[in-house]
């Protein structure tokens, strides 16, 4: 029972935060709401007993990506209330696309057979298994990701290099 209450609570947090991000006029506040959304998703991971995934969600998203976004926002908007006012045709197009997407996703979700006896990983030591899988089955995506990150770092260092006078 407690689990259900907590699930609805955190799912509500994620949903409200998501809406607030989209509807917020102030960019920095939108970034703060993003923290709520990402944190809520992390909490949902913990509820599903995916502890490692929840912790990594907090580190990578809330602690890394969000900091990067907030940094970018802080450095590029001069006024705290830099507002983006969409025009009417953009609102209509956006709503239409969202409605279509929502319909498609609900249809997919409602048609799927969710087996009710799916258990979270119990017994054993899931982190060791994750590590093993990363280095055996999923080795190629792992290495490709690291190469991608290397490319990103080089690009950032190049862009931020000091000008030669």
């Amino acid at each position, binding site marked *: 029972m407690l689990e259900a209450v907590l699930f609805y609570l955190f799912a509500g947090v994620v949903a409200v935060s998501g809406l607030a991000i989209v509807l917020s006029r102030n960019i920095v506040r939108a970034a703060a709401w993003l923290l709520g959304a990402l944190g809520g998703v992390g909490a949902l991971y913990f509820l599903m007993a995916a502890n490692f995934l929840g912790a990594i969600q907090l580190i990578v998203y809330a602690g890394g990506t969000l900091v990067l976004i907030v940094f970018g926002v802080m*450095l*590029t*908007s*001069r*006024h705290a209330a*830099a*507002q*983006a*006012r*969409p*025009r009417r045709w953009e609102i209509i197009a956006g709503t239409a696309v969202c409605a279509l997407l929502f319909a498609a996703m609900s249809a997919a979700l409602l048609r799927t057979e969710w087996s009710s006896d799916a258990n979270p990983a119990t017994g054993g030591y899931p982190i060791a298994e994750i590590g093993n899988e990363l280095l055996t089955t999923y080795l190629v995506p792992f290495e490709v990701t690291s190469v991608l990150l290397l490319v990103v770092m080089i690009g950032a260092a190049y*862009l*931020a290099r000091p*000008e030669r006078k």
Partner: protein
Amino acid sequence: MSTRRTLQSAPDLLADLDAEAMDQGKLQTEEMLINMGPQHPSTHGVLRLVLRTDGEMVLETTPHIGYLHRCAEKIGESVAPYQYVPYTDRLDYLSAMNNNHAWSLTIEKLCGIQVPERASTIRIIMAELNRIASHLVSLGTYGLDMGAFTPFLYTFREREYILDLFEAVCGARLTYSYITPGGVTDDLTEDFVDRCRAFLDYFVPKPAEYNQLLSYNHIFIERTAGVGVISPRDAIAWGLTGTCLRATGVKWDLRKCLAYDIYDRFEFEVPVGLPEGGVMPVPPGMPPVVVPAGVVVGDSWTRYALRIVEMYWSAHIVRQALDRLPAGEYRAKVPRTLKLPEAEIYFEAENPRGQLGFYVVGNGTSIPSRVKVRGPCFNNLSIVSHVCRDCLLADIPAIVGSIDIVLGEVDR
């Protein structure tokens, strides 16, 4: 570009973005005008520095002064020389004895007053003790600016003993009005010589402590070595005097070069800035100061270290003065209303912060018709706009602190 339409309420956002620069892949960040002061923990007094920065880099510095202006020069036109002595106290309030000394020497030269030798010796003792006290404050607050909180309290502990000595002779701890035209206001107390000797014995090992704690600390060297380098040419061109000038390698000290008062009877050397590996000369019996790697002549570390060496030499001079203190009068017989001749004089003395000059125009009465104060910190501060360019924000306290200004003298 679609971004132009949506961010309409912040049009100046894109004013800095140059289309060509964007094509070349250069990232434009915006410049900020940062106002440091007048109330700020690390501008030593009410100084306002307007910094034009680009992120962490300072592009341009403009000092704004005048917040402590108290019309010292105008007041000189309405009071007699004796009455002006307390006003000189408050110019550079950390070295009040030296200010009094410079003013008294000016008036004595103008009026042709001969000062007895005991009075001159007492004056030199006080001036050099005040030099030590002033340098202690400078070192302590410089460490504080750099984030080292502890040396500040150690230097002020030493300074307490000096202030105790001053309080014994004249009753005041900061603004003494002790050295007046004609001599000093009162003789030394009976135990002054013993106490002064005891203080010097206590004090001489202390700068080695400061060296261990701060001067040779790797972090401190990283923050001050090579920062704010001033060339000798620039120093002379901008009118720098005192430690700032000597740190650039120019051997110029009025106590040696002009030998005013009776400084020619004392043995001391004038230390100047040396490149890395150089050994700064110290009096016999005191540990030498070796310049560490990374230090450039004329940078902030040199200015800081030179003050430590000057403290050693001042202690040496005081010891000599105590040894040769003659008996006699502590002041000359000077008339109560001193009439200034119809002449003018400009006289400079070596203060801890530079050369303090007084230009007095007498007109036959007891009140001068013009008093001009040449404050060394005013000229020393002027180089800030030249030096604090293309440096990091954290270098500003390092440079301004090493130039060692007191706003009382800058603004008068």
